[in-house]
C-alpha cells in the first residue's frame, strides 16, 4: 500500500517534471516566436493591465499630492454620491436613449450601405462612392458640430427650409429634436466608415455559392437574402455584442459642443457629466467611480447578450 503510494507520487512527480521539461523545450524551440510576441505582451502589461490598479482611486479620496498609498480609503462613497445625485436618472436616461437610438438607427445603416455597395456593378463608380462615404469620418466632431450650428441657427439654411415647409421651430433650441439631430450626425459621420468591416466580410463569401444559386434560378434578391446575409450574420452579431459593451460611452466632443442651456435636460450624458463634475473640479476619484460604473454595465450587457445569442443561434463572441 505504502509502496504503491510512493510509486504513484514518484510517477506524478515524473509526469509533472515532464510537462515542465516539454514546455521548456518548446520555449527554446520557438524562442524567436516568443521574442516576437514579447513587445506586445509588455505593451499590454504596461498600458492595459498596470493602469487597472488605478481603479483603486475610486474607493479613495484621491489626492494627487498624497498618491495612491497616502490617500484615505472611503469605500463606496463616490458611488453613493453618483447614485444619489439629483441628475443621475436624467443623465442615465439621456445616455441610454441616445445609445439605443444609435443601435436602432445607426448600427444597421452600414450593413444596408455595404449590401447596396456590394450590388454595384461598375467598379469605378463603387470606389468613388466608397471614398465619398468614408470622407466625413475624417472630419473632427468640432467641425461637424459647428457646421450643424451654422446650418441650424436662426438664419441657417436648414432652419429656413423647415420654416418654409411651415414648421415654426428652431432646431437647436428644441428639446424634442435633440436626440434626432445627434443620431443623424453620427450616421452622417461614421456610417460610411462602418461599411469597411462588412465589405470585408462580404468579400470573404465563397463565389461558388452564388454560382450554384444562379444555376438553381435564384434572382439577385433571393441571393442576397439566402446567401449574403446569412454569411455575414456572425460578423453582425459579434459587432452588435461589442457595441452593447460601449452602451454608456458616447462621443464626448459631439455632445459637449451640441449641448446648450436650453436642451441641457436631454443633452447631459455620463461623458459630459464626468467631465464637469470629475475632471474640471479635480475630483478624479468620482470620475473613476463613474468610469467603473459604465464598464460594469457594459460588461454585464456583453455577457448577457453573448449568452442569449449562444442559446438562440450558433453565433457568439466566446
Amino acid at each position, binding site marked *: 500500500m505504502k509502496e504503491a503510494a510512493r510509486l504513484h507520487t514518484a510517477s506524478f512527480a515524473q509526469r509533472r517534471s515532464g510537462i515542465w521539461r516539454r514546455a521548456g523545450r518548446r520555449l527554446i524551440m520557438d524562442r524567436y516566436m516568443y521574442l516576437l510576441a514579447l513587445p506586445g505582451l509588455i505593451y499590454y502589461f504596461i498600458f492595459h493591465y498596470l493602469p487597472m490598479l488605478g481603479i483603486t482611486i475610486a474607493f479613495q479620496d484621491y489626492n494627487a499630492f498624497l498618491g495612491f498609498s497616502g490617500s484615505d480609503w472611503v469605500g463606496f462613497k463616490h458611488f453613493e454620491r453618483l447614485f444619489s445625485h439629483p441628475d443621475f436618472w436624467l443623465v442615465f436616461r439621456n445616455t441610454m436613449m441616445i445609445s439605443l437610438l444609435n443601435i436602432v438607427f445607426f448600427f444597421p445603416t452600414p450593413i444596408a450601405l455595404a449590401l447596396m455597395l456590394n450590388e454595384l456593378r461598375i467598379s469605378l463608380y463603387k470606389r468613388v462612392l466608397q471614398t465619398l462615404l468614408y470622407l466625413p469620418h475624417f472630419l473632427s466632431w468640432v467641425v461637424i458640430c459647428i457646421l450643424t450650428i451654422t446650418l441650424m441657427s436662426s438664419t441657417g439654411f436648414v432652419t429656413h427650409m423647415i420654416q418654409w415647409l411651415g414648421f415654426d421651430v428652431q432646431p437647436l433650441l428644441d428639446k424634442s429634436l435633440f436626440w434626432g439631430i445627434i443620431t443623424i450626425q453620427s450616421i452622417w459621420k461614421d456610417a460610411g466608415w462602418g461599411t469597411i468591416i462588412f465589405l470585408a466580410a462580404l468579400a470573404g463569401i465563397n463565389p461558388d455559392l452564388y454560382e450554384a444559386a444562379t444555376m438553381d434560378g435564384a434572382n439577385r434578391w433571393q441571393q442576397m437574402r439566402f446567401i449574403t446575409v446569412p454569411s455575414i450574420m456572425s460578423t453582425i452579431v459579434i459587432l452588435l455584442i461589442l457595441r452593447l459593451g460601449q452602451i454608456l460611452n458616447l462621443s464626448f466632443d459631439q455632445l459637449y459642443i451640441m449641448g446648450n*442651456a436650453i436642451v441641457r435636460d436631454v443633452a447631459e450624458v455620463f461623458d459630459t457629466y464626468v467631465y*464637469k463634475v470629475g475632471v474640471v473640479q479635480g475630483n478624479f476619484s468620482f470620475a473613476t467611480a463613474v468610469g467603473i460604473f459604465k464598464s460594469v454595465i457594459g460588461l454585464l450587457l456583453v455577457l448577457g447578450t453573448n449568452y442569449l445569442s449562444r442559446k438562440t443561434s450558433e453565433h457568439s463572441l466566446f
Partner: protein
Amino acid sequence: MVLILSACSGGGASDQPPAGKAGETEKEERVSVHFFLSSSLPYGTPTMENNKALAFLREQTGADLNFEIYEQIYEDKIRVKIASGEIPDVFEWGKVDDFLIPLIQAEAIVPFEPYIEGYANLEAQQQLYTTKYQGQIYPIPDVRNPIASQDIPLIRQDWLDRLGLDAPTTTEELYEVAKAFTDDDPDGNGTDDTYGIQIAGNNLDGTWSLKMAFGVDNQWMEEDGKVIPYFESAGYRDYLAYMQRLFREGAIDPDFAVTDHILAQNKVVVEGRAGIFMHYATRVYEFEDGLQKSNPDARLVGFEAVSGPDGDRGIRARVNEGGAYLSKDAAENPRKLEAIMKWLDFGASQAGKVFRDSGLVDVHHKAGQDGNVELNQSVFERDSPWAFLNTAPIQDTSEVYIDRSKSEESQNIVREAHAMNEPYLVYDETKTLFSEALTSVATESDQYILDREIQAIMGQIAIEKWDDVVQEWYARFNGEQIVQEIAESM
C-alpha cells in the same frame, strides 16, 4: 564665545543686534530671507551664482535674499515643502483656498495688511489687493491696471450716425438703441439681418456690466443682514426681467444660446451683425482687421457703462487673485520683514519696473537716446532680473492694451474707451472668498446658474419662478453650508 554669539544672531534671535563692533559684523551677518516663487520663464531658471541682478536686490534690501524659482512643477514643489513642515518666508500661491486655510488656521501664514503702511509704492495700489480672508489682505499680488476689464461697452458709431442716435447712457436708452439696431436696418442694406446686443451663450460674456447697472456687483451680497449669492438678490431679478424684454423684442442675438464666445466675437468684429458688445477694448483691433477691411466706414467705439434705474453702473475691475504670501516666522522677525517689504516696494516702484524690464544699467543694458535702452540679451537672459520680483507698478491707463502695430485711430479708441470707463470700476472682494463646500461643486453650481439664466433670458423661466431656481440651488448644492462658510471668511 564671540563665535557662539554670532552664530546665535545669525539664526533665530537676530532681532537683537549683535554687540561689539557694529559696523563690520552687521554687514557679514545679514539676515537670510527665503523666497519660493513660480515663474513662466522664457529662458529657463536664472543662474544664482554671480548673478548681478540678485546681488543688486540683496544690496537694495540689505538682506541675504535666497530664491528658489520653479516653472511648471512649482505647485508640487511648494506643496512638498510645506508638507514637510518648512514654510518659506515668502511664497507664491493663488487665491485663498483649501490649501491655505489650514495654514491660516494654524497661524503659519499671516496677512500682509498690517505691514503695508509706510511703503508708498504698495500703498498706492492697495485697492487692488482684493484677495482677503476675514477682511484681511493676505497676498500681495503682481497687479495689473484694473481697467483691462472684460466689460468695456463697445458700439457701432456708424450705425448710430445713420439712425441719428446718441450712445446710450441708461439701461432704458440702451434698450431703445438696441431695438433700433434690430428693426431700423442700421447698416442700410435693406435686409433685416442685424440686431442690437451680442452676448455669448457659453459664459454670458458681456452681461456683467448690465448686471451691475441693476446693482448686482459682487458674487456674494448682503441683503437684510444675510449673506446671499448674487443670483438671489432683488437686483438680479430686475436684470433678468430687463434681459427677457430685450430678447423678446429681438434686440439680443436670437442664437446667443448656441453662440460661444468666439462665434459671438466674430458676429461683431467680422460679420458686423451686432451693434453693441461688452468685452475687452482690444476687440477694436480685431474689428480693424476684420469688418473694417471690407467696410472702411464702419466704426466700433467705446461708450460709458450704462446706469440702471437706481443710478447703479459699473464694470468689473480686473485684478490678480494670487500673489506672495507671508510666513508667520518672517513676520515676527523685524529685520526679515523689513527686507521683504523693501523687496515688494521696490518691485512696485518705477525703478523696479526698469529693473524688471531691462535689468541694471551697464550690466544688462546700455542707456540709449530718448530713454530707449539697448538690451545685452545674453547677460539679461542669464540673470533674468524679472524672475526675482513679484510686484510691479500699475501701468498707466493710457498704455493699457495699446498695440502699436494697429492704426493710430484704433489705439485712440481703446485709450478713450478705457479712460471714460475708469470711474466705474467695481472691485469685487467677495469673488475670492473661500468655501470648502462650494469648491467641491463649483463647476456644477456655475453651470446650473448659467443654464437657468439663459433659459430665463429666453423667457423659458418666468421671473416669478426664479425663486424656485434659487431654492433648488440651495437644496442641490448644500447652499446653506456654502453661504455660512462664505460669511465666515468675509
